[in-house]
């Protein structure tokens, strides 16, 4: 099997994760579920980053760093997501994005 083929297979998986994550982010009403969709996209990024390191430039650490940064982004955004959810729940007993629509126009 050629390396390119494997890369393409792996990236297809990553694309699948991104697609599913996108669907989730767009379709979910619950804030936490939206966050899960976004995590899923980042999951795809993790996979693609690993593949990039392995197949494209293993001599450079950049792709590995990318994976690290992606992990941090996940963690940080998750933390902020919880904080925001708590804040809005405290303020108006809402945990659904559709219920916060005062601001518009």
């Amino acid at each position, binding site marked *: 099997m050629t390396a390119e083929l494997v890369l393409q297979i792996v990236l297809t998986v990553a694309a699948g994760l991104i697609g599913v994550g996108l669907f989730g982010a767009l379709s979910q009403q619950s*804030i936490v579920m939206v966050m899960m969709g976004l995590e899923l996209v980042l999951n795809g990024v993790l996979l693609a980053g690993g593949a990039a390191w392995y197949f494209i*430039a293993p001599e450079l650490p950049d*792709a590995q*760093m990318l994976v690290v940064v992606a992990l941090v982004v996940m963690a940080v955004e998750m933390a902020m997501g919880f904080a925001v959810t708590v804040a809005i729940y405290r303020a108006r007993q809402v945990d659904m994005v559709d219920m916060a629509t005062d601001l518009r126009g």
Partner: protein
Amino acid sequence: MNDPMGGMTGAGEEALALLPELLLLLGAGGGLLLGLWTPQHRQWRVRAVVIVACLASAAAAAVVFSDPPTRVFEETWVIDGTTGIVRIVVALSAAVAVFLASSSLAGHPRETEAYVLMLLGALGTIALAASGDLLLLVAAYLLASIPLYALAGFAKDASGTEATLKYYLMGAFVGVLMMVGVTSLVLATGTTGYPELATLLPEAPAALLAVGVIGVLAGVGFKAGAVPVHFWVPDVTAGTTPAMAAYITTIPKIGAVAAAFRLLAEPFGGVPLDVPLLVAVIAALSMTLGNLAAFNQTDVSRLLAYSTVSQVGYLFMVVAVAGRTDLALPALAIYLAGYAITNLGAFAAVAAFPEARSISDWAAAAGRNRWVVVSLVVCLLGLVGTPPTAVFVGKLAVFTATWDGGLAWLVVLAAVNTVASLFYYLRWIAPAAATRDVPAGGGTDGGASTVTVGRAVRTAPVVTLHVAAIASVLLGAGSGLWLAVVVPG
């Protein structure tokens, strides 16, 4: 690649090159520590520390301004004219924003934290502008975003938290897109440093490149509030307090535009895609949509929010021609400074009468105060680009640079948009300016019952407004001086 130890040995000197940022960080950390032991109603001490840190940072940046451009920390951090401009403008703007926010924050139990967060956001903004590495850009994106989520919802009322929610979800989403973009570029080249990207990207596959460019630009576009990732701007601006809105719509924008400028000039400079045209289209969409949407706004905050969207359009014009004309950098320098001053001034006008949400309320509240109206007029007409304010000079420079960069059509569109923007600014100016004087003797005051909103005039915003108006005119008149300093030669 570089010897890993090399970075370590030079770290001391290199850290010194980051003195302005260190000062901000020091201000943030010190301010927080100080705040922990400061009684609730004496948190002005923290404010003072924070402002001093900002001013010191600006001063430190100004001192090293004319040094030759360098790249430190393994070329991940660029110190050049663009960075210098952003350092000074952001630090000073942050100081002004802190001062402006003091009117609504004074005595707040979390006052300290707010200032510290503002400082951290400013630091992230500078990092956006200075980063010479995609991963650093992502990190800076996080740092420039997260404090702002908290600041947007700082009041923790219904609208504030909704603003935070939307801001956060939009930011998280675009951050993810940005990660996809970075991944795409890494897949194409294996590297994240701008210099390497600049050499490798031109041979990279176009599809990967396109996804990468779009993803990265989406990230900086979000921070700047550009179409099509601008949706947070009006909602957050309207939902949060005016002072915070001033901060959120001013400071990150500066860094984001500078980052986009650097991206276009360096890594995306030689790619086989027409990225400048893409940016031009984004600019055109932003200014047009921003202006059109502001047309019938009656809420002053939303009006200003859309106006900032359109301003991003003008700013992105110069991004589109980054690296293609010598006039681009001066244009960026003057427009960023002018925009920061003027936008802060306009929001200060809103913050002066926080209860007055609509245009008519504002006019009623401010009607007596001639000078406030005059300063507002200066600021709003400044946003239009009426001479001799700073934004006028900026617009002139931007138009010139854009035309010189071969995008004359965008100049025409921008000119038409400027006229359109005048319409909604006038919708605010006219009622405010038309309010009648109190007769000289002050005898007949028939309007006692009509003016109930915004009776309390906040001092800090009014001062900020006046300072901004004066500075806007002074910077316009003295733009030569400013440009001579920031763009020598």
